[in-house]
């Protein structure tokens, strides 16, 4: 945790953004997956990142969560600010960022309850010796943790609770996506990163997840979300950021971004933009299976 010792110039203003990203770039050999990205997220916001396939959205999340090192740029999180650059993934989680994965990454042979307990990992202590001696404190902690795991699963009503003791691999596809979210909630992070939470879901399930994300936000969580489903983005996002070829091409309200000529061009090609073609909202790039 490298903390900036200088008093932040905005410290007086209460609304210091929780996440401040300046000039972040990432290259894989010749591919520049993210280029000179600037962006900030305020506490309590829901911000959506859109962009065509391969535009660098997931790469950006991987940079934020510490899976890839940034090539250049600065990422500051929280107040007092901590630089996330160079921190390993587990340290970033400890600071209060938790994410879901576009390609599901549950712990398949662990039960639903255990998946959520791992989500809580950053709040659980209990060293080697205490675990061996099974001290009363540890037993008490574990009981409380299980109680909280149950409550977290209750967020999705009976869907996950009824599968409490079942292995994650036995869940339906939609429930696996829900469990990814539950695991993040269990971490009670200051910033939640959702990578295409409704990919592959049907319209009913999508509508349900939309309500869930709103509830998550009402509970006080800040959410940064990648999504191809424009109905969902319109429904939940207070602010939308469009990426193309790793660069931010537009930022603003959903309608502004969708009517931005560069965004239309990115999605539909130059001709469409010239013809004043449809925004991604209407014949949007649909969620891929």
């Amino acid at each position: 945790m490298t903390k900036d010792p200088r008093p932040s110039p905005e410290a007086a203003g209460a609304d210091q953004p929780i996440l401040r990203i300046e000039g972040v770039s990432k290259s894989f050999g010749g591919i520049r997956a993210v280029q000179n990205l600037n962006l900030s997220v305020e506490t309590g916001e829901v911000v959506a990142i859109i962009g065509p396939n391969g535009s660098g959205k997931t790469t950006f999340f991987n940079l934020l969560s510490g899976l890839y090192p940034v090539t250049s740029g600065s990422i500051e999180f929280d107040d007092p600010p901590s630089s996330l650059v160079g921190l390993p993934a587990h340290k970033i989680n400890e600071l209060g960022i938790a994410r879901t994965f576009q390609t599901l990454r549950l712990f398949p042979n662990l039960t639903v309850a255990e998946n959520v307990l791992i989500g809580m990992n950053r709040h659980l202590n209990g060293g080697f010796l205490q675990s061996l001696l099974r001290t009363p404190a540890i037993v008490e902690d574990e009981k409380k943790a299980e109680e909280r795991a149950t409550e977290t699963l209750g967020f999705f009503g009976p869907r996950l609770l009824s599968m409490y003791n079942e292995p994650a691999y036995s869940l339906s596809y939609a429930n696996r996506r829900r469990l990814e979210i539950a695991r993040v909630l269990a971490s009670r992070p200051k910033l939640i990163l959702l990578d295409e939470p409704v990919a592959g879901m049907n319209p009913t399930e999508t509508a349900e997840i939309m309500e869930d994300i709103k509830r998550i936000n009402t509970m006080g969580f800040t959410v940064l979300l990648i999504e191809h489903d424009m109905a969902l983005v319109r429904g939940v996002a207070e602010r939308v950021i469009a990426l193309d070829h790793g660069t931010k091409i537009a930022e603003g309200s959903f309608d502004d971004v969708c009517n931005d000529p560069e965004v239309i061009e990115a999605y539909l090609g130059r001709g469409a933009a010239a013809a004043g073609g449809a925004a991604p909202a209407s014949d949007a790039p649909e969620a891929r299976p």
Partner: protein
Amino acid sequence: MPEIDFISSQIRKDDDRSTAERVRDRLELTGYLVFFFILFLIGLAIKDAYLLMGYLALVGAGAFMWRKLPRLDQRFRDLVQVHKGQMVLVMSVLLAVYPLIFAHDAYLVHLGALAGIFVIVALGLNITLGFAGLLDVGFAVYFAAGAYTSAQLAVIWDVDFWVGLPLGGLVAAFFGFLVAWPALRVKGHYLAMVTLGYGLMMNILHRNLKGVTNGTDGVINIPAPTIFGHDFLSPITVFGFTLPFQTNFYYLTLILIAITMLISYRLLNSNIGRRWEAMREDDVAAHCFGIDLTFNKVLAFSTGAFFGGIGGAVFAHMIGFVHPDNFILLTSITILAMVLIGGMGSIWGVALGAVLLIMIPERLRDFEVLRMLLFGLSMALIMIFRPQGLFPSQRRRRELESARVEELIKASGKENAHVRPVD
């Protein structure tokens, strides 16, 4: 398979069941265990090698039939899981009387102690591989480290076995720590290659570092332990009944196994074990949920290696002689096979695997060359028909109060009081 679910859920609701039913369950479990134990004793008692072969074939066929009865199999495993205490109690009694049954046959008691040593070692690998999913194909390194450490301490410096034993474990843990660093950079098959190379390399050192290991002369005349003035090389006499001196070692391994099992169980059912399992299942996700991969992998390697070293130390003092040939690649592979055949991650399963893999080849010695062939074949058959191992690990079940669940389901959709970002 809904029927199976039905059976397990029946047992799961232990609280709702009457005392009579629970007693019946316990008796049933005891029945199974005694039956299996008797099968095992008969196998040991058959002296004629051809007769033994026939017997093993018969038991194998029986095991195959058992497999065809998934309900029975599941029932047995559920009983073991729900009545853990009963399992421990019955197994302790059965294993404790083993030397009494074979008091006239010192060789079988010796074999029991040897199997016991490898149970400890295999339980060590079970921590590294079964819990944390780190494939270590050089486990003989730790066995050797423990054996050489406590042997040389005793031979050169006259250090007592009871001091040498934990030191052997600690030195082995250090060797586990050493391999963890290069091993951290690789996964899966590549990790297997790194540990394989480590095992081969260390065995060359055993042969050539004459100043440390005496090279191919080995360490000889390793003294046997004594406890409260009782020498482990003198027979035990209880109620005028004399047990061969090997019984000393047998009970020593039994106690060490109990400790190893307890530690394994506690680690597995703690945050530590859960972190290991998460790493095994998906290390990227584990990393993103605050699990320090470096620390936890090093911890898993060292903890597993520690028990490898404990086994090695007992081995050195029981056999009285340590030679590099004890720590060749085949040793590592056999330890690995114990874990795979028993059932990765399953504490009882791995113990069973170790006992079978020590005792069966030993009892088939009359067949010479054919012995390893038959043995290899039976391992292949087990892996084909039961890839998860003889006694696979069971999912842990957590109790969930139904009233609480109702309440949570009703509350969902409204505000969720406790799930909030932390300040």
